[in-house]
Every structure is written in C-alpha cells, then in structure tokens.
C-alpha cells in the first residue's frame, strides 16, 4: 500500500486509539519511575553489643553497632538504669576515640628532650623489659597516677602500687568534685554520690551545678528532666528554679534563673531552708533537723540579712520582698514535693565549696525527701566487696606534695595512665617542672599524647574503651545497686598494637614474682570473678544487659547526727576570691570538650556550645551591655584575661545572659601537645584558663577552688572571626524571621505568649 499523507494519519489515529484502549499510556508515559536511593537498599547484618562508657560524667550504658568487625554507631542501652537508652554527644564520640588518626600505634621510647613529644618506636618486648626493670629498681616510692576510675581498675592499680612500695593517686580532672564528695561523706556518710530523683520531683531548685550539661550524670538527669516536664498538658509540670552566678545551660532551662553572687550558693540554700523551716515548723523533717532551736537554728540565714551576700537583682523578685520570694519558694517546695540539687561542680569551686554543698544536702533533709520518691536517694554502697566506690582522687595539697616528692627523689618512678594533670592543674603546683627532672623515670600508658604523657621516657599504647574490658560502679548509682561492665566489642585495627593497661600491670607483677599480691591473673578474669563469684550472676547475661543491678538493695536514708545543721551553719563563710581586677573569673567545664580531656575529638570540638553556639575556640562570656557600652568591646575582639597568676587571651562573646562583672571562660582550650584536632590553634583563640588560676584551696576538702580568682579584661586591639553556628548570615538560620514567628511559647496559666 502506498504511504500517502491520508493513510499515515489514518494509521496513526488507529494506533493512538489502540494504545489508549489497551491502557498503554499509563505505563509508557510514566517517564519518572520511583527513584531508588542507596538508603532504600540496606543490606548486611549488624550486631549490637552492650558495653559501658565510663569516660562521661556518671557513666552511660551503651550499645555499639558492629558490622564486619568495625564499630559503626554508639547508642544508649535502653535497659541500663541510669541513661535508659539515651546517650550524650561524648558517648557517640567513642567511635572517634577508637578510630582516631592520632592514636599511639605502638610502644615508643623518648629520643628528644622531655616534653618535646619526640619518640622512636620500639617492640613490646623491649618496652615491657624496660617497664619491669623500672618497677623493680624504682618501685619503692613510685607514684601511679591514673584517671579517676573505680572498681577493678582502681583495685589493680592500688594493689600494684602497694606491692612495690608506691602509691596510687587519681586525677579527678581540672574540675574535680572533691568539695561535694567531702560534703556527701560528712552529711550523708557515704563515699559515693547520692542520686537526685528528678523524674518524680515536682519542684526543683538547683544551686550552681550545671547538672544538665556536665555535673553528676547529665544524661541520666536529662532523661529524668524530660519526665519532670512530661505532664505539661495536665497541669502537673515540674517547676525549676536555678540559683547561680553564671547563665549556664541548666540556668537557661530553668523556669526561673535567680542570679546570685559567685560562691553564695550555700547561703541561698540555707535561706531556702530557713523559709521552709519558718513557714512549715510543723513538718517532722524540719523538727528533726533543726532540733530544739527550731527555725531559730537558721536565724543567720533570714533572707533579709543576706541581701548583700546573695546580690539577687530586684528585677527577678517579681515585686516581692526577698523574704516573700523565699517564702513563696518554700510553699511551692512543701506543697509539691521539693528537691534540691547541686552544690558541687561550679558551686564547689570556691574556698567555701564544702559549705555550699553541705547546705544543699541538709536542705534536702529539711525537706524530708531523703530516701523518698522524688527526693535525694542515698548511695547504696558497693555490691562488690573490698572494692572502692570512689577513686583515690588527690587534693591540691596532695599534688603539691607529689611535686615535692618527685623533685626530692622520694618518688623515683612515675607511671601515668590517661591523666593529664600537667594541663589541668595550675602551673604554680610545679608538676611539669618536677616531671622534667632527669632523676625521675616517667612511664605513660595512654591512647594519645598529651601534655603529661609527653613528659614520659616510655610510652605504652593503651586500648580504647571499645577494645577493652572494664567495670565500674557508676557514681551516682540510681539509688540502688548497679554494677556496669565494659567488654571489648571490636579488635584493634591491624596498624595498632595497644595493650590493656591493667593487664600490663598484672603481667609485670607476675614477671617480677609478685603475682600473688595481685587480685587476679588478668583483667578479664577479675571481671569474671566479680560477676560470677561475688554477684553470683551469669557473665553472658551480664554482658548482654551491660551490667548487673538489684533494685531491692537501696541506700539507707540515715538522719544526719544531731548538731549537723548547727555545724554547717557555723562553717558558713563568704568565698575567698583572690586577686584584683573588675571581673570575677568563672571557668566552667565545656559542654562536650569538658576540661580538655575530649579536645582531641572532632565531634566534641565541633558541637556548638549550647548557649553561645561557638565551636573550636576559647571565648570569654561578657555581659552584652557592659562589654559594648562600658568597655567598647565587639564580638571577636581579642582580650587579655589577667589574674595574679598569669594572662591568657580569648575572643569576646557578648552574652546577654552573663551577669555584669562576670568573665566566664570554658575549659578545654590551649592544648599544646597531642592530637592536631586539639593543638593546631592560634593562642588568641585557644587558651587554657586553668593556667592562670592561683592555687586557692577549698576549705576542708583541700581541692582546687577553681572559681576563686578576680581578673582584668583588657582589649588587645586585635580581633578574629568567631566560629559559631548562630549569626546574621540568613541562609543558615530560620532566625532571619522574627524570633516570635519561629519560637513560640505559652504561659503556664494557659494564656498564649507569642
């Protein structure tokens, strides 16, 4: 048939009609098939192992996802009693610690000056021979300095040091909590910390401590805080008041922040105690603690008499007198089940730190909540016999003696494990100089080089937490017996040859013929023995759960001995703030980098600070108005922060929440040796605030009162860009819109805010 135009159109029409009739178009015209992305096609089997992260405050039970021998993700263990399936940013970063590019790969011997960080690799055989020889020759008087780990680790270290005539001391970190621990021992009679049952409390007052960020067990307390806020829609939402001199993360989350003078937390707690006692004298708890004196036992703490001590701005009193304000708080407390939290951390960092902590603890006794639901749950003690529930943390005076012992030759050998006191202690202690003494042999076992391990003659690579055994008695426990177990979930990579430090100690003792004095043949056997012989549990079950716990063994709520309140009241004294200058220098633990121990972890450095959103840098929080109007400062200006002990530089962050006269500086910057993530920084934007502290001591406990310095702030005329998330660059924030259009609130009475 000849193809004419007419024929072509006819056939085309027939074909199109046929196609429609046969429903071809539906399929043929769907040119965009559903797209498959790789995430749609997940394959492979993953295994989840329960273990424990003892490196974060309070410890967290975690599950680790492992695929083909590699750890892929850390998450909270839902069964674990404290963190209940949740994890902090630092626990996620266990992976970065495990696969960190700057890990020490094998044993090394110093081949440069002390502190230079220059080493050459040696074999494990040579390293152990040197280690054993040093212990044999110099063990008498040796110092074994470790991080503040407890349980089997501390037991092995203690036994090793004692066996060879030395002693074991722990470094609790720059922001150690010795004042709070001493107060707990004094008021509650326990070595370990009590747990705050925030989840079941209805009115919460916190005193200084940043318990949602770095103090106590922030993840467990945050889980509880979520429950505390849970009943919002049924009118039973918990209320939170925070007394503190810094606008911390905890202060920012409180319903009401009550700014007070630095170091007056104890007075604030005693004023609340007075208000409770005077408004509720009929309470049996009040009567029991105040004794015959009744509310008069607290007469020195009537709020009217503390106006200057506390320094509460009138604007936050809501039109009430200061006495009425405290009485209202007391009514709320007594009507709804009150809990007082804190006294440690920042509140304990003053000469009167132990008073501050004791006052908060005794307030809970006056509230009658100790051992009660929604109250303060005492430590139940150790479920493992002869095992310390607290690490042997050295006080500031101890460190001064330690430096002296090293200098004098009384401590001829120093073995250090995962502790960095050279960085974390004030330089005036002289530890760096002492460790630089050529007469002492220094051996370090750690995963990374730092300012202290760089003083070592011999470096031993340590296993990461995910490669090693371990156990712990979490501190605080959740009010009942809890024993956490850490197990190796992956093997070290082929290019790394680390060994477990407790096993190094146990092997050395055995090689030197002193194995009988040690508590076990190896680390794993010791943990197995704890679980199977002491707890009577099955090891596999314990490993699957990440630990062992018994809710029936709770802490004993003992009433403090008579006269405790009077003694605490007698010990009340204002904080001794040293130095001169217009500002109070308030160091604080960085939310993720903490006191510098996580400075090598990129996720810790790059997580924006919750309040300022600054990353990677050291900044100083200065009140926005004061900084701008009085000092002429702008954000990013480089200033000198000078105390009687020295000077550092930091970038200005004009913070509308910081009280005037406060210069708040996060810890953790200014690392000089170790991972490039921690050290590769300009001194103008990375500095160590601990290096300019005068060695003020906490009365009683002897710890470092790290918030007791005044300082001056002087501009250098220089400025740098601040590396932060917030900003006026509109493509990175919904904030280009008015805040009220984005962030909405409603008043508790039911009326809408904005």
């Amino acid at each position, binding site marked *: 048939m000849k193809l004419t135009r007419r024929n072509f159109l006819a056939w085309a029409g027939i074909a199109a009609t046929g196609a429609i009739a046969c429903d071809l178009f539906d399929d043929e015209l769907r040119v965009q098939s559903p797209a498959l992305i790789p*995430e749609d096609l997940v394959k492979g089997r993953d295994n989840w192992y329960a273990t424990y992260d003892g490196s974060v405050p309070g410890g967290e039970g975690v599950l680790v996802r492992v695929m083909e021998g590699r750890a892929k993700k850390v*998450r909270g263990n839902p069964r674990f009693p404290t963190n209940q399936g949740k994890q902090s940013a630092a626990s996620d970063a266990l992976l970065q610690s495990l*696969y960190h590019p700057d890990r020490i790969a094998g044993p090394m011997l110093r081949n440069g000056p002390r502190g230079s960080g220059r080493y050459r690799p040696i074999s494990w055989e040579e390293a152990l021979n040197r280690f054993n020889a040093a212990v044999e020759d110099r063990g008498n008087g040796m110092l074994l300095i470790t991080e503040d780990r407890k349980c089997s680790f501390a037991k092995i270290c203690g036994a090793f040091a004692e066996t060879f005539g030395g002693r074991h001391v722990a470094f609790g970190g720059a922001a150690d909590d010795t004042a709070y621990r001493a107060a707990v021992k004094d008021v509650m009679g326990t070595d370990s910390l009590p747990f705050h049952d925030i989840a079941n409390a209805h009115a919460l007052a916190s005193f200084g401590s940043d318990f949602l960020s770095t103090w106590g067990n922030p993840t467990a307390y945050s889980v509880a805080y979520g429950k505390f806020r849970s009943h919002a829609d049924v009118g039973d939402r918990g209320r939170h008041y925070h007394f503190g001199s810094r606008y911390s993360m905890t202060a920012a989350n409180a319903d009401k922040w009550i700014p007070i003078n630095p170091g007056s937390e104890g007075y604030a707690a005693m004023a609340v105690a007075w208000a409770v006692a005077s408004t509720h004298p009929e309470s049996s708890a009040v009567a029991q603690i105040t004794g015959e004196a009744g509310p008069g036992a607290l007469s020195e703490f009537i709020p009217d008499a503390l106006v200057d001590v506390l320094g509460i701005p009138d604007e*936050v009193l809501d039109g009430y007198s200061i006495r009425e304000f405290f009485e209202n708080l007391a009514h709320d407390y007594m009507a709804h089940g009150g809990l007082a939290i804190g006294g440690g951390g920042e509140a304990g960092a003053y000469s009167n730190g132990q008073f501050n902590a004791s006052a908060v603890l005794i307030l809970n006794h006056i509230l009658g909540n100790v051992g009660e639901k929604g109250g303060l749950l005492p430590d139940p003690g150790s479920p493992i016999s002869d095992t310390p529930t607290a690490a042997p943390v050295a006080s500031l005076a101890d460190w001064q003696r330690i430096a002296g012992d090293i200098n004098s030759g009384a401590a001829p050998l120093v073995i250090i494990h995962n502790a960095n006191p050279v960085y974390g202690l004030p330089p005036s202690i002289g530890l760096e100089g002492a460790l630089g003494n050529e007469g002492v042999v220094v051996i370090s076992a750690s995963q990374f080089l730092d300012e202290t391990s760089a003083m070592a003659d011999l470096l031993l690579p340590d296993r990461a937490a995910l490669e090693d055994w371990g156990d712990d008695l979490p501190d605080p426990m959740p009010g009942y017996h809890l024993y956490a177990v850490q197990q190796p979930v992956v093997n070290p990579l082929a290019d790394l040859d680390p060994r477990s430090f407790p096993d190094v100690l146990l092997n050395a003792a055995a090689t030197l013929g002193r194995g009988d004095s040690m508590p076990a043949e190896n680390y794993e056997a010791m943990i197995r023995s704890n679980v199977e012989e002491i707890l009577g549990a099955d090891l596999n079950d314990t490993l699957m759960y990440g630990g062992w716990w018994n809710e029936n063994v709770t802490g004993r709520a003992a009433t403090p001995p008579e006269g405790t309140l009077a003694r605490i009241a007698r010990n009340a004294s204002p904080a001794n703030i040293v130095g001169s200058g217009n500002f109070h220098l308030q160091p604080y633990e960085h939310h993720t980098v903490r006191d510098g121990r996580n400075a090598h972890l*990129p996720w810790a450095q790059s*997580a924006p600070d*919750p309040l300022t959103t600054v*990353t990677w840098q050291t900044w100083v929080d200065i009140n926005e108005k004061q900084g701008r109007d009085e000092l002429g400062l702008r954000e990013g200006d480089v200033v000198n922060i000078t105390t009687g002990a020295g000077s550092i530089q930091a970038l200005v962050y004009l913070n509308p929440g910081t009280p005037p006269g406060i210069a708040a500086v996060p810890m953790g910057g200014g690392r000089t040796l170790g991972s490039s993530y921690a050290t590769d920084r300009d001194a103008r934007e990375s500095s160590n605030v601990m290096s300019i502290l005068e060695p003020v001591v906490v009365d009683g406990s002897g710890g470092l009162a790290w918030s007791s310095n005044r300082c001056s702030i002087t501009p250098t005329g220089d400025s740098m860009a601040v590396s932060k998330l917030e900003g006026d660059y509109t493509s990175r924030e919904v904030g280009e819109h008015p805040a009220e259009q984005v*962030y*909405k609130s409603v008043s508790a009475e039911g009326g809408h805010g904005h």
Partner: protein
Amino acid sequence: MPNAEFPHKWGMVIDLDKCTGCQACVIACQAENNIPINTKDYFLQRRAYEWIRIERYWEGEYPNIKARFMPVLCQHCENAPCEPVCPVFATYHNEEGLNVQVYNRCVGTRYCINNCPYQVRMFNYWHPNWPARLENQLNPDVTVRTRGITEKCTFCVQRLRRGEIEVEARGGQRLSDERITGGNYDPACVQACPTNALVFGDLEDQDTSIKPYFDDVNAHPGHGEHDRETRGYRLLEEMNTRPSVIYLKKIDQYPLKGGH
C-alpha cells in the same frame, strides 16, 4: 522498598518545653549519616553541615533573660517548596511522606536550597574527607555524598527501610511506635534525645502517639492557633508548606514581662 501492605506517613513532634539544647541529637545525626567533620573553617564560612541543628534565640536581657532552644531539621513538607524547583527531579516526595534527595540526580543548581524557608538543605562545597582510620566508622547504609550536590535530613530513611524489611516484610507486623523504638528504627536524633523532646511516628498508624498533635493542628489550620487543644504549631505555618514536623510550644512558668 516500601511494603504496600503497610502504608506509612512519617512525622515528628518536637516538644520545645523539653529540649535542653544539649546537642546529643546533632552529634548522633552526624555519626549516623556520614556527615563530614565540621572544621572551624566550615563554621567561619557558614557552611557547616548540620542536618539537624539547635537554634538558640535570646529573649529579654539580664537579669530577666531567656535562651530558647529549638531543633530544626528538614520539615518533610507536604507542599515542599524545594521540590518543584529542581530541574532534574533530584528531590521529590515519596509515598511515605518523605522529602527525598536523590544524590545521583542532583546537579547542584541549589535552587532547592534557595527555596527552602527552613534553611535545612546543605550544599557540599568540598569533597568529603576523613582521615584514614576514621573511615572505619562510616555507616555502610548511608551514601557518602560527593562535592557539588545538595543533601539534607532523610528522617534516617535507612533505619526505616531496615524496619520495613525486618518487621514488616519478614515479620508481617506493622512498624508501630513500640516496634520502631524497640528495634532502633527511630531516626538517630530521636533515639538519642535524652529528654524525649523528639518523638517520631507513623501517621498512618491510628495508635501512634504523635497523631493527636497532627489532628489538632490540621483541624485548626492557619491562624486558628488559639483554638488548638494541644500546644502544637507548624514552623512558619503561614507559608502553607504543611510540614511533617509539629512543634509544641514552650511553657513559660514566668513569662518575660513585656514579652512578645
């Protein structure tokens, strides 16, 4: 692939009264989704990768001051402004209500980034780079995105797919709230959030805990906020993007005097 037997419409509720700003969600997301290390320079150039970020707003001034924390992630809008502007269909809405980014299709025009009112889409200005050992941590379920393309929150679709395979296809059971959480199929941010400020669920599941909030907000669209029984609202609701994320207002026990 999604199982037709169990249709889904994923959604999230974020309770601003519970968010403490702790950053656990931010780092959990970066660990799960192979997000490159945000160096200082990335922040200085305002190009840090954060699929979920905590925005912090200041209200008032000392001493009556409030810092407000708000997690912001891809809102997985039903009327997503990013979708129609993509010239190569790299971003589209899938049958489970997810706003999906197909990396292999993306040619990097960044039109979607310009059109997103929530600023939650990131452009890869650099090749992703991890030091050799850190590569061992990368999640094999998640693509490592190359330079020149756009990426964003996926509601951890790889976890949802695992759940659909393991619970629905193999087990024949719907992914309920309990099974999602119990099986670790929640998005990483939700799983990590210590205060449970972030809650995830399936709006096709009549029993999900998040459904009442969506029903309430949907029943009072636009500016009918005051009629709502819950504290729910959608971010920038006036734009009618219909996000799959509902925020619950912060409760102010002590509202700032003369506040907004």
